[in-house]
């Protein structure tokens, strides 16, 4: 019996070998899987180059500084419903990228959670205060609307802030990430994380109840009441000093000063304002030469008392009142006799006429200034003085300044025969300020002692003691304290106004939370008067109107002015000024953090003829060049042959 070895089945082996097509498919599938895995891995990394000139899509240094210096954990919870249409998907991706960057620079202090938007997620979103938004999209060539959540909630310690909306709508159904989202988010985190909020002080001259020109007998009230109570207080709370008197130096802890409609200020007040700015303070001046009383009751324009000081800083408020004759830049008002008339002196500043680089104001569609004044600043001179000038608001090209405010109540002013042009209404000056009293005696310093008569006896001690000047009775100096070191003991302070023994001007307790009277005689050691500065860096913002935050135009009153302005302007002016204050109270870094996309790059205007030439050149350039290249190739080849 023989055993036959089984021959190797060559044919069978061939059969067993997979076909090239099958191998090809398999290898393609493997490559596909490898590529998908590779992409998934890369998807976890953030490696990118921002080619934009201003690094628009890269976190700014300010954000990095704020986020990296977080001391406590900060949580960002993102609520993004499935209902948000896919046209907004690029926004979600950009948001994801942005938040990833925040988390990565925070060193683990900031965590981002995308909340699963099931029923519990939606309930949580609603409870946190997020609102459902409407989104438009096309479905089978039909325009439809979807409702969904798309917002952020930031948690830091016990504080919670809601950020919404995150979108800017562009085009028909296009969405893009809000350009100032980085600013808003960073500012929010900054506010929530800072231990000591900046102190904001309001300087408001109390004024007589204003008359309402459309509702005589109505009106009245403190002009700043609404602004302070409804808008600044919620943000700044206890960090808000409601009524600081600049008869005294601004308390050292105040970082931002809002000066509301100053009236007939003394030199000393102007000096204290100046010294505050020179010490690095930020001041917002809402100047109001023309108010309802001036415009409709024939009163003279209000003198702020800051004119000379502003002039020394290169800023002037042009006399008269500004109008804007552009149809969309002024309202129609109903007169008492029922007529409807346009009123170009209520200047509606449209978004195009606001500084688009300033995140605090750039999103306003419009803000109305009531009988504003033109702010005149020579930017070159400011630059030479070491300050940058940034116009923040201006009229349209149909702006015009009437040299005086008389007769504007006749509602008869038209653009005919007038030279129209843009008028600056609000400006920011940032940089080095020089004291208007440099080399002179400061208004809060005591009068120098009269030169001793030639025959006066040498060595009289009282003559050389500044605090012991003749205007201040020695009996008013607090006992036991050397009068010469007491700033309040200067001659200009009438004894009756100064609390006995308490140098009011140097007391930080002059803020609204603690009235000066309450502090009298509490035995506190008076704060030192800040050293006089001749130069310093600060920020000054000047707006040629204060009515935009006055009760008269709040729209809150149930009179005709209120109702009318409510329709016309709502409370945009209040939000506007609040935003500016908000912007000013940020750290120096935050102030520089701007919506970088906001620089609107425009082409030069061209005439129809030029446009025709440009089009023709664009149409012809490529074909001509290509024909030349073709001919070159042809001749080179021919030459080679």
């Amino acid at each position: 019996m023989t055993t036959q070895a089984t021959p190797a089945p060559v044919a069978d082996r061939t059969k067993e070998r997979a076909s090239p097509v099958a191998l090809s498919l398999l290898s393609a599938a493997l490559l596909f899987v490898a590529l998908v895995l590779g992409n998934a891995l890369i998807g976890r990394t953030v490696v990118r180059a921002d080619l934009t000139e201003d690094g628009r899509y890269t976190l700014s240094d300010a954000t990095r500084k704020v986020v990296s210096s977080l001391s406590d954990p900060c949580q960002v919870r993102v609520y993004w419903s499935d209902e948000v249409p896919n046209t907004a998907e690029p926004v979600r991706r950009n948001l994801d990228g942005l938040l990833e960057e925040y988390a990565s620079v925070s060193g683990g202090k900031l965590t981002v959670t995308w909340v699963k938007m099931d029923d519990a997620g939606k309930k949580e979103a609603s409870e946190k205060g997020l609102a459902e938004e409407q989104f438009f999209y096309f479905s089978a060539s039909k325009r439809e609307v979807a409702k969904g959540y798309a917002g952020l909630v930031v948690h830091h310690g016990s504080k919670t802030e809601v950020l919404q909306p995150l979108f800017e709508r562009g085009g028909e159904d296009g969405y893009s990430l809000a350009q100032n989202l980085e600013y808003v988010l960073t500012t929010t985190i900054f506010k929530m994380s800072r231990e000591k909020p900046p102190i904001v002080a309001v300087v408001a001259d109390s004024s007589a109840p204003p008359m309402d020109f459309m509702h005589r007998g109505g009106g009245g009230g403190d002009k700043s009441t609404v602004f302070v109570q409804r808008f600044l207080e919620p943000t700044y709370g206890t960090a808000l000093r409601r009524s600081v008197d600049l008869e005294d130096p601004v308390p050292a802890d105040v970082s931002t000063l809002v000066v509301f409609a100053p009236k007939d200020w003394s030199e000393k007040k102007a000096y204290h304002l100046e010294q505050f700015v020179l010490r690095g303070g930020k001041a917002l001046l809402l100047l109001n030469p023309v108010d309802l009383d001036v415009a409709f009751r024939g009163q003279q324009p209000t003198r702020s008392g800051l004119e000379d000081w502003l002039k020394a800083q290169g800023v002037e408020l042009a006399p008269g009142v500004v109008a804007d004759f552009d149809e969309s830049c002024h309202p129609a008002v109903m007169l008492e006799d029922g007529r409807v008339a346009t009123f170009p002196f209520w200047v509606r500043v449209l978004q195009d006429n606001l500084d688009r680089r300033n995140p605090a104001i750039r999103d306003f569609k419009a803000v109305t200034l009531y009988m504003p004044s033109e702010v005149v600043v020579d930017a070159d001179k400011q630059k030479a003085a070491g300050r940058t000038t940034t116009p923040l608001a201006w009229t349209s090209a149909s702006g015009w300044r009437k040299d005086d405010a008389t007769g504007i109540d006749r509602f008869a002013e038209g653009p005919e025969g007038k030279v129209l042009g843009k008028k600056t209404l609000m400006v920011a000056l940032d940089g080095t300020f020089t004291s208007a009293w440099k080399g002179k005696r400061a208004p809060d310093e005591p009068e120098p002692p009269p030169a001793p008569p030639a025959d006066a006896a040498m060595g009289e001690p009282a003559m050389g003691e500044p605090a012991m000047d003749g205007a201040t009775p020695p009996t008013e100096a607090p006992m036991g304290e050397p009068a010469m070191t007491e700033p309040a003991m200067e001659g200009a302070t009438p004894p009756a106004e100064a609390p006995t023994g308490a140098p009011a001007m140097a007391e930080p307790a002059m803020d609204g939370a603690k009235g000066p009277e309450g502090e009298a005689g509490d035995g506190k050691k008076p704060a030192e008067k800040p050293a006089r500065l001749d130069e310093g860096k600060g920020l000054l913002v000047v707006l040629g109107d204060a009515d935009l935050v006055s009760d008269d135009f709040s729209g809150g009153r149930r009179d005709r002015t209120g109702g009318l302005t409510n329709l016309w302007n709502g409370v945009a002016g209040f939000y506007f000024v609040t935003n500016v204050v908000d912007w000013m109270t940020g750290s120096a870094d935050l102030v520089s953090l701007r919506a970088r996309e906001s620089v609107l790059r425009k082409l030069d205007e061209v005439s129809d003829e030029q446009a025709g030439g440009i089009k023709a050149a664009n149409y012809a350039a490529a074909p001509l060049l290509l024909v030349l290249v073709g001919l070159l190739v042809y001749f080179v080849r021919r030459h080679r042959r």
Partner: protein
Amino acid sequence: MRETLAVFRKELRSLFVSPIPYLVAIVFSAFMTWFVFEKQIFLVLRQANLDSLFGLLPIVMAVVVPAIAMRMWSEEIRGETIETLMTSPVRVRHLVAGKFLAAMVVVALCLAATAALPVTVSVLGDIDTGPMLGGYLGALLLGGAYLSIGLWLSSKTRNQIVAFLVGVVACIVLALVGQIGSSATGGDLQRFLSSICARDRFDAIARGVVDLRDVAYFGSIIAFFLYLNVESVENRRHA
């Protein structure tokens, strides 16, 4: 690499002796110029950017690039010159890479033909060069992705028209897949569709941000379809 370069030079020569690439570039440029100036009223809106150009590019390129790619293999198959290529000592992957690079030169030529527009914007305004560079880089990557798809489809058929039509459909689907569906699509599916959408990726680069993820996406598409192209030609050799 040397072999690839040799194929590239040969393909480039054969491409540029014919008037086709010039005509394609001229038509492409004329259409884009018309669209930007007439439809997007470029000089009226006066925006110093190339958004109006880059906004349409993914769709126009979805038509132009398959037109460039359609004959690259189909003609070899139809003229049976592919048999000669198969017997040559050049490896298939070098053939594919050489053809791809040569066709990319034509794609780049088409894009260069739109250069008058950025020049106009620079002269009339202050253009941000970042988004401009990003836009052209994104367009090259997008063109590469479309081209790799077109080349693969061209290797599958001897009929250029079929290769072109199927290529156009494939490229348009790739460009618009992110827009398919509606809010009813649901979050995860929507996110997935958007993540594979060439237009969304292109838009991300065209805003001036070159993200490794977007580059990897286009690189993956190019690598995958060039590999399929190699396999397709190899299979033809084995058939």
